[in-house]
């Protein structure tokens, strides 16, 4: 395709991307460098049905003047990024100096909200992504080997987890693991511990969310792999059978290398998706035990009665940076292959 026609084909999509993704990201970036103006508080008499007392309110007249002059707020530089609720540079340094062992240091840092969320997000990412790739590939291979007559209904059944709305899927599991749900109650009997609760145990909550993640994302990997398997040429496979290659050898030496670009693609998408894990935390009401970076943003924007735009913006920008860092190795590799292929 000549560059000119490519440009015109790409133009509408590109414009939409700049308008609806590019500009908001820039605006988020700018916002993350600002904090609210200093609040001007005045003492007034407040009366309600339970009596009167003197206490403080925000002085609207004084505040509105400052706001008109500088609507964005007070410039804070990287202040929000390094405060305790984000990178917490000061606290981390302090912990490093006062900790006697590396274990103690890690424990203390892990107690800071941002690192707590980061640990869960990375754990989720690192466990779910390979599991999804592996499971998706195995399912695709098995279904590909099954008689064509029953393949249709089986494929439909396999992609069901992806069709079910994430929130509904997680709610169903949430009720099953309730202390009186089918899984929760049976676990109590099995472990002989009437006070066992999947929902209040941190480890069990993490495991539940991870299992849910694998269950929910595998169909996507399966669909892509299944499509890729249809393009594997038959001749080399037949030749290898004649040469006496086992099923495992055929998969390893012929099928996998052939669909390798697709594996990279699925890995990229899964990594990006998993790094932004959010719905299951809400669905499982798991805020107490598991927090992700996306959940932190949500918390800053809606859970507080006061909306923390600066905090939310800073976490958003760091999430974008985090995704870029995670994707770099995969992207570098693809780039190298692209170069050698030319």
């Amino acid at each position, binding site marked *: 395709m000549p560059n000119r026609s490519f440009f015109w084909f790409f133009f509408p999509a590109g414009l939409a991307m700049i308008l609806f993704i590019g500009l908001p990201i820039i605006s988020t970036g700018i916002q993350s460098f600002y904090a609210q103006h200093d*609040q001007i508080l005045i003492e007034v008499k*407040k009366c309600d049905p339970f009596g009167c007392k003197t206490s403080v309110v925000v002085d609207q007249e004084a505040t509105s003047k400052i706001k008109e002059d500088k609507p964005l707020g007070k410039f804070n530089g990287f202040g929000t990024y390094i405060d305790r609720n984000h990178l917490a540079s000061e606290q981390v340094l302090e912990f490093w100096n006062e900790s006697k062992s590396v274990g103690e240091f890690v424990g203390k840092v892990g107690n800071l909200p941002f690192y707590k969320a980061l640990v869960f997000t990375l754990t989720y990412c690192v466990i779910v992504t390979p599991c999804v790739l592996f499971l998706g590939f195995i399912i695709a291979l098995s279904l590909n080997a099954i008689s064509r007559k029953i393949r249709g209904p089986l494929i439909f059944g396999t992609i069901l987890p992806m069709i079910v709305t994430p929130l509904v899927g997680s709610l169903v599991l949430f009720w099953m693991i309730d202390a009186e749900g089918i899984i929760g109650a049976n676990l109590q009997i099995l472990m002989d511990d009437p006070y066992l609760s999947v929902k209040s145990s941190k480890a069990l909550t993490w495991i539940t969310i991870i299992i849910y993640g694998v269950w929910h994302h595998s169909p996507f990997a399966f669909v892509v792999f299944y499509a890729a398997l249809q393009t594997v040429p038959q001749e080399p496979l037949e030749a290898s059978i004649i040469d006496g290659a086992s099923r495992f050898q055929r998969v390893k030496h012929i099928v996998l290398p052939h669909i390798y670009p697709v594996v990279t693609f699925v890995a990229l998408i899964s990594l990006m998706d998993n790094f932004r894990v959010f719905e299951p935390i809400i669905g499982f*009401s798991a805020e107490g035990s598991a927090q992700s970076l996306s959940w932190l943003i949500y918390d800053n924007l809606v859970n507080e009665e006061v909306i*923390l735009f600066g905090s939310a913006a800073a976490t958003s920008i760091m999430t974008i940076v985090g995704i870029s860092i995670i994707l770099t190795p995969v992207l570098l590799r693809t780039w190298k292959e692209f170069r050698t292929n030319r």
Partner: protein
Amino acid sequence: MKKILVTLLFLLFGTVANADCNIKSGSINILANDFPALRTLVETAKECKGSADFKVTHSAEHNKIAVPALTANPSEFSVRVAANSSIVPLMNADLIRPMNDLVEKYGKGIQESQLITIDGKVMAVAFMANTQHLYVRTDVLQENGIAIPKTYEEVVAAAEKIRAAGKMKYPYAAAYKAGWNLAEEFVNMYIGHGGEFFKDGGAQPNINNAKGVATLNMLKKLADLSNPDYLTHDSEAIKVEWESGNVAIMTLWASRSGTLLDDEGDAKITAATKLVAPATVGGGNIPAATLWWDGFTLAKNRSDADAEASFRAMAHAASSKEMVAKAADQAVWLVEGFVPGPKSVGVIEAVKMGAKPYPMLPQMGLMHGALGSEIVEFLQGNESAEQALKDVEAAYITKAKEQGFL
């Protein structure tokens, strides 16, 4: 058939004729929480909408919608039904208008005590009061020879006795869901211990002290007597636990009693359910509970005509003797003519015992938010009480700095 039709028509015209406030223009759009008393109030306001447009959004997510919706100009809603905590962000951002002139002109039926005034300006008109108090199962208590608990120490002892008797595995319940609900339980218990959240009227936090530790320890004791999933249970969830007969003592909002005691569910449990005063704690004499009012506010970014129409409709409801007589068991109405029934016991006792209102301070929302997420690890047993309180203060200070309070 004909008879029914005639009756229906009569009812229809009857109500319109009865309660026309003669509103000629403007549009009314209300944002409110979702529980029976508020639905009744809004229905009553609708009776007299006259020829004004009338829309309403009842949502449990009202807190998340309010600030963005009222910041828009013109604002999406003309009326926001708020409470002592949710009015604060609206005032912080200057989103609601004083209504002294409207009260003077159209607020004849409204009592002086219903007005929420800040520096003399009427910012809201309250119509009901609320608090969290104890609910007990009299049959279970009698069976085990337990008197109705008056303090949280007695609650713990009673629940332990019921558990030891093998009657119930998790005899106590309260809304301990991580986040807003859990923080609210801390606020109640800390106030019961006589604690102050901020150092002498400023914005510096003041919870990392002996009272804070005692508060956390009491919460933990109660949590250990609750369903192990307590960190995921909100008011609605513990209500279900109660109706299934799993719980003998519970701390719950007074406003939830209406649906708890309705005809649905096990009649035996409903009959044995008794509403009693909120408990005290740690030898204190004020209850470990906060008083709340629910009232209506008017959006600033909306035309004067809309504000006037909205006020007249809402004022009609907030002063309707007919409504409080009909819906007497739905809430503790602050409206003139209300005769308290058995379901009002909790709030009335709380007021008598000198319960404090929830602190209406500009920075309280940040403290509430920090509490909701930072004390979870203590309850899970992963952290000491002192560390948890230190974390709350640190998280609060960071947020308060970003918001310009420190």
